[in-house]
């Protein structure tokens, strides 16, 4: 069988996390709210109303355009896309067609040993439609989602595997959260992806007939659906059949693709400029204000962590997964005097655990980055031992007090005073003649038990290595 290559383009719809809808002051987020409770005459399409655009939508679009290396257009326009569907009360969707808010752009995906450049073919703002539910031969409509702001972003046919498609969505989701543009939760449909899939012989550069996969609502589902569809297409071609330009519906439960209705052609939408709205004017001054505090982006920061702190790529990836965690790490590094890898280890093992357990963002912890640095420093300088250090994390988090304060108040300071440890160790040896006999009789493993006894008696404060040495000394004298 000849070798085939998969060609994928992704069409994403991103629900913005604004307070209000795009053209009216209704609340944008209706997650788990009763049907038709966040609607007004504008978004439910009553006659005689006029849309008034939400400035925050343009601002978020400018942020995304900047992050995608796209060019923001000073003037852009809204258009009407006309079609009949019960979820669209006006009979048209307000979107942007030939003069969108940004043009061009790309995202470079790190794929381990190579980088895949994904071009952005389209980036525009538009309104969402409502939700319909089929029951019997009737449809029930909830207009809450009508007018929720979306950015539609379409990539070129640049992705070459299901893994690259999944990576694109992972990096896009990371970016959207990093810039506070969208919650980007695929299960809640904040981020929706349709995949255009075709195949060709490896080495060819023509584009063959593609199919479009819809209704995939997780990154794993995108990966699986693309793999299945590519396999199907290869079999069709091998069997001598043509690929038809189908729209395929993904069924989450059965993990199967099935054919959907044939699409109306583009010309049938009869796009024309929205007469109820003027141009969106994003002049340089406004752009400058929006981009004034534009942050370092996750992929750039990831690279910097590798270069600047000599962290392994694995660590850098985790530490830049989310902005709050990443900022926290850097603040801790600034406050800490020592090997940055130490801070990374504590972050990845302990801080991550605390965040998972509490559901908090790193920036919300009472355990400030400076306190984390202080705790690691206390352990480094042997002022407390490692287990005490770990327990300090939760103590600081629950009280908000500084580590030093807790160490002093609870007397947690590690006993490195050989005299004090020797005294305890001697007492343990004297109290346990049977165990001593067994140990001296060759049960070397019992040393651990003795160390444990010393630790217990010292309430965890003894330096365990020192305790072991002193015990060995005592035994060697016997």
């Amino acid at each position, binding site marked *: 069988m000849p070798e085939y290559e998969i060609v994928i383009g992704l069409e994403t719809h991103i629900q913005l996390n*604004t*307070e*209000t809808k795009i053209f*009216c*002051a*209704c*609340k944008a987020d209706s997650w788990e709210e*009763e*049907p*038709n*409770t*966040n*609607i*007004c*005459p504008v*978004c*439910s399409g009553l006659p005689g109303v006029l849309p*008034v*655009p*939400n*400035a*925050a939508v*343009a601002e978020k679009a400018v942020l995304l355009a900047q992050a995608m290396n796209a060019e923001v257009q000073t003037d852009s*326009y809204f258009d009407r896309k*006309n079609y*009949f*569907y*019960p979820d669209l009360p006006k009979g048209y969707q307000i979107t942007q067609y030939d003069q969108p808010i940004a043009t061009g752009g790309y995202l470079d995906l790190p794929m381990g040993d190579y980088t895949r450049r994904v071009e952005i073919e389209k980036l525009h703002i538009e309104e969402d439609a409502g939700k319909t*539910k*089929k029951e019997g*031969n*009737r*449809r*029930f*409509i*909830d*207009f809450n989602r009508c007018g929720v702001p979306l950015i539609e972003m379409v990539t070129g046919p640049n992705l070459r595997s299901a893994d690259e498609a999944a990576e694109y969505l992972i990096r896009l989701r990371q970016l959207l959260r990093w810039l506070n543009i969208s919650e980007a939760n695929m299960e809640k449909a904040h981020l929706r992806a349709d995949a255009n899939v075709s195949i060709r012989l490896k080495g060819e550069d023509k584009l063959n007939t593609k199919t479009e996969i819809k209704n995939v609502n997780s990154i794993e589902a995108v990966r699986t659906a693309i793999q299945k569809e590519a396999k199907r297409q290869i079999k069709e071609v091998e069997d001598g059949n043509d690929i038809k330009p189908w729209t395929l519906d993904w069924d989450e439960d059965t993990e199967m693709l099935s054919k959907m*209705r*044939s699409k109306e052609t583009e010309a*049938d939408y*009869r796009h024309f*400029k929205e*007469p109820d*709205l*003027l*141009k*969106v*004017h994003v002049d340089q001054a406004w752009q400058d204000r929006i981009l004034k505090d534009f942050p370092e982006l996750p992929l750039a920061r990831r690279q910097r962590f590798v270069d600047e702190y000599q962290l392994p790529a694995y660590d850098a990836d985790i530490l830049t997964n989310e902005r709050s965690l990443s900022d926290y790490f850097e603040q801790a590094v600034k406050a800490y005097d020592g090997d940055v890898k130490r801070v990374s280890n504590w972050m990845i093992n302990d801080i991550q655990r605390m965040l998972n357990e509490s559901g908090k963002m790193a920036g919300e912890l009472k355990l400030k980055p400076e306190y984390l640095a202080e705790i690691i420093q206390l352990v480094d300088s042997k002022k407390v031992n490692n287990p005490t250090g770990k327990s300090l994390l939760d103590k600081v988090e629950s009280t908000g007090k500084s580590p030093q304060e807790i160490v002093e108040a609870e007397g947690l300071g590690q006993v490195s005073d050989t005299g004090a440890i020797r005294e305890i160790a001697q007492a343990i040896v004297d109290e346990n003649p049977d165990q001593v006999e067994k140990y001296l009789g060759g049960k070397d493993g019992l040393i651990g038990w003795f160390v444990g006894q010393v630790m217990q008696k010292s309430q965890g404060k003894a330096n365990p290595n020192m305790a072991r040495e002193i015990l060995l000394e005592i035994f060697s004298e016997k």
Partner: protein
Amino acid sequence: MLLSKEEVEHIAMLARLNLSEEEKERYREQLSSILGHVAQLQALNTDDVEPLVSVLAKEMPLREDLPSPGLSLKEATENAPDVKADQFKVPPILDGADE
């Protein structure tokens, strides 16, 4: 420039209009005459004219992102022909393919 009957039927379908044979013929003439008028305008040379979308004020007023309440559920649904479980109930419109 006369539209074909098929073109009129296509336009009617997009607007979900049921036209009688007599109406199809009438609209065919009317639509054709509108297109003829536009064709006349297209004869003008506009190479040096900037495209114009609107003659209104240049800047569009934007709204601050502050929520305010819209319609109550009662107001939203009281004029609807059919409502069930607080939702608008409508007949299927994509016969066959979708339903």
